[in-house]
C-alpha cells in the first residue's frame, strides 16, 4: 500500500499535465485529491505496518531487478522510521495544497511540479536501493528549483539558485561516497541491506562517512552549510517553504541516518563529537540570528536551522532515546514549521504584502486577523517546545539522550531552547500584539478562507495529538531502531 503513495503522486502530476491550462479549479481539486489519496495510503500503510510488524524492522514492498549489470534493484521497503516520515509527507502534502489554493498564475504547472516533488519525497523515504534513493532525491530537488524560481517572491532567482547549487553539491558528495562504497564493498550491489552487511576498512569509513553525511546534512541545515535554508525559505512560495522546511530538510536528515550512519558506523564514531558540536552551534546560532531578523519569514527560516540542529544532535547521541527523539523531531518540526510558514506566507503576506516586522507592527494583526494570530501563537508555543505539543517529547528525548554523551553541549542546547522562546515571544509581540490604538482598523484584509482553516486545523491537530499521545509514533520508531539495519549503531548492544 505504501508504495502507491509514490505512484499516485506521479499519476496526479501526469494528470495535471494533461489538463487544459486554464482550468485552475480542476487543477486544485486534482492536486487535493491526489494529496488526500497519498495521505490515506500512508495512514493505511502505517496501520498495516504496525499491525503486521510489531517488532519493527524492514518490510519489503517491491524488490525487482532494474539494471542488473550494475546490481541496481527497484527496491522499495518500509520500516518504522520511513513510515513515520511518509506520514509526515502525507500530512504536509495535503496542508500544502490547502495553503496554495489561491495560486492563480500557471496553477496547473504549479501543482504538477508540487506533486512531482511529493512523489520524489515519498520515493526517498521508501527506497532501500541507494541508486533508486538517489534518483528520487534528485527528483525532489529539481521541481523545488522551479517552484521557487517561478512562483517565489523576494530574490527568488537568487534563492532558487543557491538552494539548487547547495543541494547539487551535496548530492555530488553523496554520489561519490555511494560509488566508493559500491566499489570498496565489492558486493556488486546498491542494495542498502546488502551494503550494510559488508564491512569497510576503518580509514575508508572515516572519509566516506564524512562525505556522505555532510552531503546529506547540507539539506538538513547543518551549520555552517545552512545558508541556503533562510534565503530559500524566504524566496519560496508558501507551499514550497512549507515543504522545504517540512519535508525536504528531512530528506537530508533521513539520508544521513539511513545511509551514512548505518553504512559507516566507524566513521560515525570518529566524527561523532565534531558533528554534535556543529549541531549545537546550529541550535544556538540559528536561534540567535532569528532573534534579530526584521523579516518575519527569515525568523522562521532561521528557526528551522535551530530546530534541525536538535535532529542532528539526537542522531549524534547514538543512543536509542536520542535517535528516537531525532526521528520524532523530524516529524514534529515538519508539522510545526509548515504551520508557521503557512501563517506567515499565506495568511499574512498574501494579504498584507509585507513581512517586515516594522510594517506589520502598526497593523495590529491580532485584531485584523484573529485566526492567524491564534494559530501563530499556538504554533509558536509548539515551536518553543512547550509540553503538550509534539516538539516537547522530541526535544525531551534528544536532550535526555545527549546528557549521557555530551553533558556540556546539552547545557548549551538548553540555552538554545531559551533563545528559541525569546525570538518567538518577540514575534508574538511585534507582529501580532503590538500596542497601538485602532490604527489597524483602517486597513482591511480579506477573511481567512475555509481551505486555510482546514489546513491549520490539520497541522495543529497533528502536533497536539502527537504531543499528548507520542506513543502513536514511538510505537513505530522505537522497535525499528532495534532492528538489524540499525544494529551497527549500537556498539556492543543497545545502550
Amino acid at each position: 500500500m505504501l508504495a502507491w503513495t509514490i505512484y499516485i503522486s506521479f499519476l496526479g502530476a501526469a494528470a495535471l499535465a494533461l489538463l487544459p491550462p486554464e482550468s485552475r479549479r480542476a487543477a486544485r481539486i486534482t492536486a487535493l485529491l491526489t494529496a488526500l489519496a497519498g495521505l490515506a495510503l500512508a495512514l493505511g500503510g502505517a496501520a498495516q505496518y504496525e499491525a503486521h510488524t510489531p517488532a519493527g524492522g524492514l518490510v519489503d514492498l517491491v524488490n525487482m531487478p532494474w539494471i542488473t549489470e550494475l546490481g541496481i534493484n527497484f527496491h522499495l521497503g518500509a520500516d518504522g522510521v520511513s513510515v513515520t516520515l511518509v506520514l509526515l509527507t502525507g500530512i504536509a502534502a495535503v496542508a500544502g495544497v490547502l495553503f496554495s489554493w489561491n495560486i492563480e498564475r500557471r496553477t496547473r504547472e504549479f501543482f504538477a511540479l508540487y506533486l512531482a516533488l511529493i512523489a520524489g519525497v515519498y520515493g526517498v523515504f521508501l527506497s532501500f536501493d541507494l541508486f533508486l534513493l538517489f534518483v528520487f532525491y534528485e527528483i525532489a530537488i529539481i521541481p523545488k528549483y522551479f517552484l521557487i524560481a517561478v512562483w517565489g517572491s523576494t530574490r527568488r532567482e537568487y534563492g532558487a539558485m543557491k538552494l539548487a547549487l547547495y543541494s547539487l553539491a551535496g548530492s555530488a558528495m553523496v554520489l561519490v561516497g555511494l560509488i566508493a562504497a559500491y566499489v570498496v564493498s565489492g558486493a556488486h550491489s546498491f542494495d542498502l541491506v546488502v551494503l550494510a552487511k559488508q564491512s569497510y576498512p576503518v580509514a575508508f569509513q572515516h572519509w566516506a562517512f564524512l562525505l556522505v553525511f555532510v552531503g546529506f546534512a547540507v539539506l538538513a541545515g547543518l551549520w555552517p552549510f545552512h545558508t541556503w535554508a533562510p534565503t530559500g525559505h524566504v524566496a519560496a512560495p508558501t507551499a514550497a517553504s512549507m515543504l522545504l522546511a517540512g519535508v525536504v530538510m528531512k530528506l537530508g536528515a533521513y539520508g544521513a541516518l539511513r545511509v551514512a550512519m548505518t553504512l559507516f558506523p566507524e566513521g560515525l564514531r570518529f566524527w561523532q563529537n565534531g558533528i554534535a558540536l556543529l549541531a549545537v552551534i546550529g541550535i544556538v546560532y540559528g536561534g540567535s540570528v532569528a532573534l534579530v531578523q526584521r523579516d518575519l519569514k527569515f525568523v522562521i527560516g532561521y528557526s528551522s536551522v535551530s530546530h534541525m540542529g536538535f535532529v542532528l544532535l539526537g542522531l549524534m547521541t547514538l543512543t536509542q532515546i536520542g535517535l528516537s527523539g531525532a526521528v520524532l523531531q523530524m516529524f514534529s518540526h515538519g508539522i510545526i514549521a509548515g504551520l508557521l510558514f503557512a501563517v506567515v506566507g499565506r495568511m499574512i503576506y498574501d494579504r498584507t504584502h509585507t513581512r517586515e516586522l516594522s510594517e506589520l507592527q502598526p497593523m495590529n494583526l491580532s485584531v485584523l486577523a484573529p485566526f492567524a494570530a491564534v494559530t501563530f501563537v499556538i504554533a509558536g508555543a509548539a515551536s518553543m517546545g512547550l509540553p503538550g505539543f509534539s516538539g516537547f517529547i522530541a526535544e525531551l528525548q534528544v536532550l535526555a539522550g545527549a546528557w549521557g554523551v555530551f553533558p556540556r553541549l546539552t547545557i548549551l542546547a538548553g540555552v538554545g531552547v531559551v533563545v528559541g522562546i525569546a525570538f518567538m515571544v518577540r514575534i508574538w509581540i511585534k507582529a501580532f500584539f503590538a500596542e497601538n490604538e485602532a490604527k489597524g482598523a483602517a486597513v482591511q484584509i480579506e477573511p481567512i478562507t475555509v481551505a486555510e482553516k482546514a489546513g491549520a486545523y490539520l497541522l495543529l491537530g497533528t502536533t497536539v495529538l502527537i504531543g499528548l499521545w507520542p506513543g502513536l509514533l514511538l510505537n513505530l520508531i522505537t522497535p525499528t531502531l532495534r532492528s538489524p539495519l540499525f544494529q551497527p549503531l549500537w556498539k556492543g548492544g543497545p545502550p
Partner: protein
Amino acid sequence: MNSFPLLSILTLIPLLGGGAALLSPTAKLARRIGLAASLLALGVAALLWAAFDPGQTGWQFAESLPWVPSPGNGYQGIEYHLGIDGLGLLLVGLSALLVPFAMLASWKIEQNAKLYFALILFLETGLFGTFTALNFFHWFIYWELGLIPAYFLIKMWGGPRRTRAANQFFIYTLAGSVAMLLGFLAIFAATGVFDFEKLAELARNGELQDKLAKLGGAFFHSKETLTWLVFAGVFLGFAVKAPLMPFHTWLPSAYAEAPTGTAMLLTGAMSKMGVYGFLRILLPLFPAQMRAMQTPLLILAVVTIVFSAAAALAQRDLKRMVAYSSINHVGYCLLGIFAVVQLSGDAAGSATDKAAALNGVMLQMFNHGLTASALFYFVGLIEERSGGLRGLDDFGGLCKAAPVFCGLMGITLFASLGLPGLNGFVSEFLIFKGTLPLAGWAAAISTLGLLITAIFLLTILQRVFNGPLQNRWAGWKDLTKGEKLTLAPVIALIFVLGICPQILISVANPAALAMLKLF
C-alpha cells in the same frame, strides 16, 4: 491502585468549561459558564476534602495508567500517575476557592470577556494538574499550561506597561522552566525514571545520587558536578516561580500590571507552585544538596523576607506594595523549608520543631493565598472607584465615606500582618516556632520582616482610610451587595482558620510527618 478518577475529572472540568466559554455566543453567557465551571470544580474539591482520610498515609485518589511507551532500553515508560496527600489537597482546595473569587473580581471586564474567562479556566486546569500530577512528564505539561494563559491575561488586559511586564514574566519563568527541564532530563538519562514517587524512593536509598555521579563522572573532573548542575537547574525553576530573591525581579511589575483577577491568582495560587515544587520535588530528591547549601539558602530566604518588606515600605503604589508583601510572605515558606533540611542529631525535640515548621509552611501557603488575593481584590476596588488611581497618597479618610469597605480591608490587612485570631498568625507562628530552634539566626533576622510588614500595612490603613477625607472622594461608594457577597466567604475563612486552624492542620500534619521521613 485506581480509584474513581475524581482528580482527572477535577482537572478536566475547567478545561472543558474554558472551551465552552470560548464557544459561547455572548460574553454574558461566557461569564456564567466560567463561574459555573469554577463552582463545579469547587464542589468537586469540597468532595475530595470530605472524602480525604487524613489518617491514611500515602497517595489518595491515586490513578495510574500507562501512557508513553518506553523510548529505549533502560528507560521506563511514562505513566499517567495522579494522587494527592495533605499538601496536594490543601493547594487544590486553595486553587478551587480562589478561581471563583477571581472570576467575580473580573466580572466587569468587557473587552474580549469570553477569552478572559476561558484563559482563567485554563489556568485553573494548570493549577489542579500541577498539584496532583506525580509524573514529571505530565506534571510539566500542567506547569507550563498555567504560564501561557497568565502571559496573555497580563498582556491583553493589563495596565499601561503590560507588554514589558508580561514579556519579562514569561521569559524569566520559561528560562527557569528550561533549566528545570534540563535537570530532569539528566535525571531521566541517569535513572530512566520520571515518576516522582519512584524518584523519591531512589533518592532515599541513594541510587539517584549514585547514578547521577556515574553519568557525570565520565565527563567532569568531579563526580558531584553533574549532580550539582541538576540540582541548580531544578532549583532555579522553582526559585523563579516562588520567587526567591534575587530571582524575583519579574514579579512586582507582573503583579502590578496584571488585571485584578489575574493578580489574585498569580499571587494566591501560582506562586504556590514554586513552593510546592520545593516541598514535593527538591526536598525529597536532593536532601543532601539542600543540606550542604543550607546556609546560603537561608541567607537568600532572609534576604527575601527583609528586603521585600523594606521594598514594600518604599513603594508609593498600593498594588506594588501588596506585590512586594507577597514576596515577603512566600519568603516565610521558603525560610521554613530551608530550616528543616538540616540533620539535627535526631533529638526528639528537633523532630517536633521540623514538623511545626513544615505545618507552618503548608498553612502559610493556604493563608497567604487567601489573604493576598483578598488584598489585591481590595486594591482593585479602590482602583475601580477612583478611576485608576492607586497611589498611597491619593486617598485619605475613606473610612468616613465607606466604613464597611474600610472595616473589611482592615481585617484583611491585619490578617496579613499576622494578628492573633486571624489566619496569618497561626502559620507564621508555627514557622517561627519551628525555625527558631533549627536556625535561630535566620529566624531572628526574619522577625525584622514581620516588623516592617506591620509598619507598611498600618501605613496603608492610615493613609488610605484615616485622616481628612478629600473632597473628590466624598461620594466614595461603600461595598455593594455583590462585593460583600464576594468577600463574605473569604473574610469568614480568615476568622475561622484563625480560630480553628485544626481544620488545616489535621490535613497538613500527616503530610508533614510523612515528608520528614523522606529525607
